[in-house]
């Protein structure tokens, strides 16, 4: 089996806070990430596409098609934004790395066919590094 993985980066701020929890519980769960005004990260996004290379082109997927999908659905909406306030999906969702990864996977999956077509290339994995020390990955 072959897969290709492309690595992107975007910088954004967020705050981990749940309106359903008390102030003390928010602090206990989220620690510094609960600080009221938010804080930022340089996120790294890795998108893995699985499939056989096309016999003529040798490509699993043309990289420009993948770049365009990722730019439209993830990089432009998230880059240099405050995720809690600027990205609609997080109006009522805590932007933990887990939730950001899940939302990214959903956004890429939803418009996959429009950008990548009906071929054999399929979204296999989405991985997000919040810092060099934590990351979350979802096998789609």
């Amino acid at each position, binding site marked *: *089996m072959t897969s290709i*993985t*492309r690595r992107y980066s975007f910088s954004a701020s967020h705050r981990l806070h749940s309106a359903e929890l008390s102030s003390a519980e928010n602090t206990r769960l989220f620690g510094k990430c609960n600080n009221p005004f938010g804080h930022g990260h340089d996120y790294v996004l890795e998108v893995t596409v699985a499939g056989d290379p096309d016999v003529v*082109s*040798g*490509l699993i997927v*043309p990289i*420009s098609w993948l770049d365009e999908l990722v730019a439209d659905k993830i990089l432009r909406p998230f880059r240099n934004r405050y995720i809690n306030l600027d990205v609609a999906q997080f109006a009522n969702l805590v932007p933990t790395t887990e939730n950001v990864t899940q939302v990214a996977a959903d956004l890429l999956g939803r418009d996959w066919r429009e950008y990548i077509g009906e071929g054999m290339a399929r979204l296999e994995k989405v991985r997000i590094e919040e810092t060099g020390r934590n990351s979350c990955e979802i096998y789609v």
Partner: protein
Amino acid sequence: MVITRKAEFSASHVCRIDSLSDAENHELFGEEAHPNGHGHNYTLEVSVEGELDPVTGMVMNLKELKDILEEEIVEPMDHRFLNREVPPFDKVVPTTANLAKEIWRRLENRLVGSGKALVRVRVHETPELYVDVTP
């Protein structure tokens, strides 16, 4: 138990299909299609699975693996123009995916009968792009 060994080589290539127009090549391969080629510092990670030898404490002698990587990959590909100098890339487009598959094929041949199994070949074309081949 799995061990992974890295190797590096620098090579040039061009990804284009002669029967297609410039515009079509650009659509498929982007700037990789510029006709005179361009280069990358490729990084290769090879993962081999086997039983841990209780005497040597090794899955596979890393010197032996290093020598295989040198003979099969680095020596033939380092500082070469893949399309011109490294078969089958005179006939097959040297995309990262095809390069990774060719590396898998060469290494698998060398491990036949050794009791070790190739479990992953990862080829980084740039720090932002890699291809994995698995069984």
